[in-house]
């Protein structure tokens, strides 16, 4: 067992973990941040995506210890300071980009990373970037639309189709 410290959603945190403890497990069980979801055991679904030092990472694919000293952002850290939905979150609500909500935290975190890299992605770029996030509910239509809308693009043509 080792002590590990990091900054999560702007707050310094620490905990005692086993070598095999995944970052996802540390966030969920150690810190009670259950917004990060576990949808698979093969690092395929993306429900667990968080940001580690600004990069989108599947938190089930790294050990908690690998994030020691890092700055981590989870879905719980994505709202505005006043508690209102952030721009990407708001776009997901406005465009019905979620149904059961289980893939949603990972989708939002991946989308945020995409828009940080590529502020005006094309439809194809959004679809390609989100390839590592599986959603069983939405057929992706409204997710792609929400991400494009969050980037300031006019999606009314998609809506009108």
């Amino acid at each position, binding site marked *: 067992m080792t002590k590990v410290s990091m900054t999560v959603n702007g707050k310094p945190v620490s905990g005692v973990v*086993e070598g095999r403890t995944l970052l996802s497990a540390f966030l*969920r*069980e150690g810190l*009670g*941040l*259950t*917004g*990060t*979801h*576990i*949808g*698979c*055991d*093969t690092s*395929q*679904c993306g*429900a667990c995506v968080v940001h580690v030092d600004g990069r989108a990472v599947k938190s089930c694919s790294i050990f908690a210890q690998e994030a020691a000293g890092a700055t981590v952002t*989870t*879905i*719980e850290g*994505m*709202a505005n300071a006043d508690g209102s*939905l952030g721009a990407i*979150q708001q776009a*997901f*609500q*406005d465009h*019905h980009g*979620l*149904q*059961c*909500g*289980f*893939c*949603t*935290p990972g989708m*939002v975190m991946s989308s945020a990373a995409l828009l940080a890299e590529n502020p005006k992605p094309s*439809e*194809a770029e*959004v*679809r*390609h970037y*989100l*390839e590592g*996030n*599986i*959603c*069983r*509910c*939405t*057929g*992706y*239509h*409204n*997710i*792609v*639309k929400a991400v494009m809308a969050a980037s300031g693009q006019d999606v009314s043509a*998609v809506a009108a*189709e």
Partner: protein
Amino acid sequence: MPKDHGIGASSKRREDVRFLTGKGVYTDDLALHGEVHAVMVRSTVAHGSIKAVGTARAAGMPGVLAVFTGEDFAAVGGNPAGWLINSRDGTPMREPKRPVLAHGKVRHVGDAYAAVVAETYEQARDAAQAVSDDSEITELPAIVDMAAAVANPGNRVHDEIPDNLCFDWGWIEDNRAAVDAAIKAAPHVTTLELVNNRLVPNAMEPRASIGEYFPGTGDYKLTTTSQNPHLTRLLIAAFVMGIPENKLQVVAPDVGGGFGSKIYHYGEEAVVLAAAKKLARPVRWTAERSESFLSDAHGRDHVTKIELACEKDGTFIAFRTETLANVGAYLSNFSTATPTFLHGTLMAGPYKVPNVYVNVKTVFTNTAPVDAYRGAGRPEATFSLERVVDKMCRELGLDPFEVRRKNLITKDMFPYTTPVGLAYDTGDYQATLDKAIAMADVAGFEARRAASAAKGKLRGMGLSTWIEACGIAPSHLVGVLGSRVGLYDAATVRVNATGSISVMTGAHSHGQGHETVFAQIVADKLGIPESSVEIVHGDTAKIPFGMGSYGSRSLAVCGVAMAKAVDKIIAKGKKIAAHMLEAAEGDITFEDGKFAVAGTDKAKTFGEIAFSAYVPHNYPLETLEPGLEETSFYDPANFTYPAGAYLCEVEVDAETGKVDIAAFRCADDFGNIMNPMIVEGQVHGGVGQGIGQALLENTHYDENGQLLTGSFMDYAMPRADDVPFYNVDYSCQTPCTHNPLGVKGCGEAGAIGSPPAVVNAVIDALHRGGHSHVTHIDMPVSPSRVWSAING
């Protein structure tokens, strides 16, 4: 001008805020004081005789609190099938016991035969591995292929069932001779043999359950990933564990998708309850995705031969089908209804065909149980019909649009009774077909095809005109068809003293947005803001006895129960208003949230009436009870019958066999629409799943019964770059004639109508590209299958 609130408005979903901020509470998110962890020990062989379950070493391992085996549950009941189906000869189906934990034999890879409970998850896991290592299971030959299962009576999934047949069902048996004769005499018969591929539902939230027991009261509580907490409670209480229903609370909190797979009661739920009682501590279990693949009920898995008899001009004379339907190793709760009454009764499609006969043999195999998955039986029926119709058109050189148009039931023919036992109440199938054609710019197809050809791609267009029976309900109908439960639903509307409203519904939302849509309906009917209405669901301790959400029934059955309860509230409100305004009850009107005496300016607001109901200082108690709370149980007169036309355009790369969906157009008739945004989302999701079935998803067991597609690395889920934007239209609306909201249900349509549209489009592309020897490709229409078909 679109509405901005109430019925018909695209109100934004209130539940989204918690899901978007990580504040949803799914079963695995709960942390309970003193909780311990259960891990299942699952069979690694498909078929085996259990000689010894090695519990001794595991029991002594660190942290281990209990080890359960099949023996511990041998005395309790089995998990029953919800529908009794009779074979053609009148004998009842074979119904082997489905134990909580396998006992005597294991019957599929992943069949749980022991469970370990320990202080930590890791300890439970380590000990489960020890049980697995120490157990002695003699492997028996696996029964995987359905035809072989039936043909090989010596090798049995259940020792007492010699031919591995659950039943041999004919629908309708009395039609058979006439259908045979009609086919024999027909000028043309098209025959198609096809496979409806087995699918793994893969809701993104894996199944999870937490059992609690309260020794002081003897009460149990189960928190579980369920689409229908009352049904789960009934099954556990009355059939499996013998707990009085009123001592078991079942809670389904936020649930991350279901698609059918979370309708059923699973053995893990009984294990965590039994363990909680034994240990007097909360016991939690969460499936890993690998376990979900092995142990969730799968979907589809039909092998069908369909014959279509017609005139030379394409006028349908008869359909006849023979199907082998896989139920897997045990009967899951809806498994016997899915290939029969959710499939055979739809085999006339939207067509005026006089002769239909359906035969289904349901077969036990050493694979995971198969049950309802989004659409459940209706996608299988639709796929068979829409593929054989297309094949017939090619054989006779007829236009698939015109052949469908000629055979569709016309608007003036409703109500229309089919030869397979359903009475369609209303529809306009020509209208949805016309709409789809207009949306798809069919006239411009040739130019698009030429553009694709210039890129070296083959372009094709595929049509599917589909119908479904949903709003799964009428108890009287399902009772005749073999259901052992009623399928009504219930809602309670409680007006609180300060005017806010709590609605307790039997529906369960696991992505459908009930918290928003149901509030829209109640608010609209009462003339109050949506924000005053709270929807409560998913807890047997709070809601009336309802049957949950599946079969596109939430709105058409549960929603109507709620609307009827609101009507009772209004009726009671009028009584109260009559008293307060000193008028005759018959003179009270209710409009825009106000109770008024007709023709006067005397009125009370809804809030005033609500307050008075709970402060009844001067009520005439003999004629007026205090309080304002009403419950309605609603049992519809019929199924509802959504229908539509789907048009898919694909581009096929003949070099690689890869299929791309170029466009997908849906023209649906769902009757009246409560929230267009949510309806569109439901169709998108269903079509996404249908495209997954058509192009990507395959569940493959090898000859030893090992699941080769047991993870997201091997099982191809549709991803964002596999699908296009969809065009969805719901403007053709023929309201349901037998429910007051005029709604039909929209949850399954996309998954039902889309697979044949995709496959028809692929075949069309190949034909237009000169590969006219290809008459059918089984799903998933993968690059290797397309390439082989072209080059075969």
